[in-house]
């Protein structure tokens, strides 16, 4: 009986850490209330150390990640060269959640930089 309970808990643990989430990364203009954050530059993006590649202006890319806690890192590119200007954010997702990250909002530290949906 104890073994069955332990196995169920292991199952729940594996489910939680292995659950896939879709993270959309937008580099588009975004309006939050009265403020509009404009997309200007191209960014190189990593989600949980997984390289997503370059996200140009008005472009959207998708990252598939597993687990609850995640980290997104974006680095600005000017004239096809990494500027070294990095922005980093951490976020958590519930088992059934997916997210859309707005790079312009993220680099401006807006609270609405991430939109979580079920």
């Amino acid at each position, binding site marked *: 009986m104890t073994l069955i309970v332990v196995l169920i808990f*292991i*199952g729940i643990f*594996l*489910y939680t850490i*292995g*659950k*896939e989430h879709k993270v959309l990364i937008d580099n588009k203009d975004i309006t939050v209330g009265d403020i509009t954050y404009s997309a200007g530059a191209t960014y190189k993006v990593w989600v949980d150390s997984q390289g997503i590649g370059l996200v140009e202006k008005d472009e959207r890319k998708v990252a*598939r990640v*597993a687990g609850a806690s995640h980290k997104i890192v974006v680095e600005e590119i000017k004239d096809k060269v990494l500027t070294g200007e990095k922005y980093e954010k951490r976020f958590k997702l519930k088992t059934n959640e997916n997210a859309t990250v707005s790079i312009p909002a993220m680099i401006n530290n807006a609270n609405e930089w991430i939109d979580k949906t079920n």
Partner: protein
Amino acid sequence: MMKKQSLTKTMNPGVHFLINYAVPITFTILVAFAIPVTGLSGEYFVRELMTRLSRNSFLVLALLIPVMAGMGMNFAIVLGAMAGEIGLIFITDWRIIGLPGMLLAMLISTPIAILLGYFAGIVLNRAKGREMVTGFMLGFFMNGIYQLVVLYVMGNIIPISNPLILLPRGYGIRNAINLLGIRQVLDKLIPLEIGGILIPVATLLVIATLCVFFIWFRKTKLGQEIRTVGQDNEVARTAGINVERTRILSIVISTVLACYGQIIFLQNIGTMNTYNSHEQVGVFAIAALLVGGASVAKANIPNVFIGVILFHTMFVVSPRAGKELIGQAQLGEYFRVFVSYGVIAFSLALYAWRRRVEKENERKKAMVLKRGILVK
């Protein structure tokens, strides 16, 4: 031991060796002729062989315990493979990826494999002496139930929500499932590349662990009991061993291992053919073990690796050899299927013939002994 002695006495040691190792010798000769014909590069050949060794060894190892228990080649490992596939269907539906996904598939399929193994054990206990053909038929029977569950129950009674695996009509699973989320997660867990060849270190470690487990298991009480049952059921029963229970346990262990083996196999391939992936599992694993020099009554760990290497070398070279020799790669494909079934048929026939010779020798020996007693 006595059987071995009686056979050895009547035959020249060279002939005895040739008869015992007829299948591996034939395969070695075939492979030795086929490799130069193909013109394959050494790197390609080693890469293919490494992939196939890591992909198939676990499944072949799953066959060892029933042989130890005197139940012959367990064709019912197909049941374990089906259990593994059900686990993979669930994790794909729930979108669980990476190593946790693979482990969860193993966890989900373990109780199914135990149940199927228990069922197979009961059936095989009722068919003592005809375990192999019964196991073979059991695979067909369970395939029907598997298809019923996967084609009609999943999506209808068992909730499946992922449209990528569900048939457009709303129930039933698609013919092919993409296992991209867990593709080669175990193989690439510990990345190591030597000379451009990826070495699946973690998979090889898992296989090595299973080998160590077997060596340890043989020395345990259950291992000893299984060996005793394998030697003689009546002697085992007299020694107080529950023969039926021991035989069921050996099939359960084999089925569970086959279930894990199928998951390891499919994570390497990265796609699952829902209705066919398990069908050939038993035949190919058994053929590989027999090619390695095992017999229906005796199989060990070296037989597994020799068999996988020889049998899969044949798989690698036969389509190319067919193309080079006849101009048709398809012929090589037919050839390897023919070889798989042929090897099994040949090994079984050889085993039956050896058993008949042994029995005849024992009968003659008994007659001589009886005559001697009467003369006295």
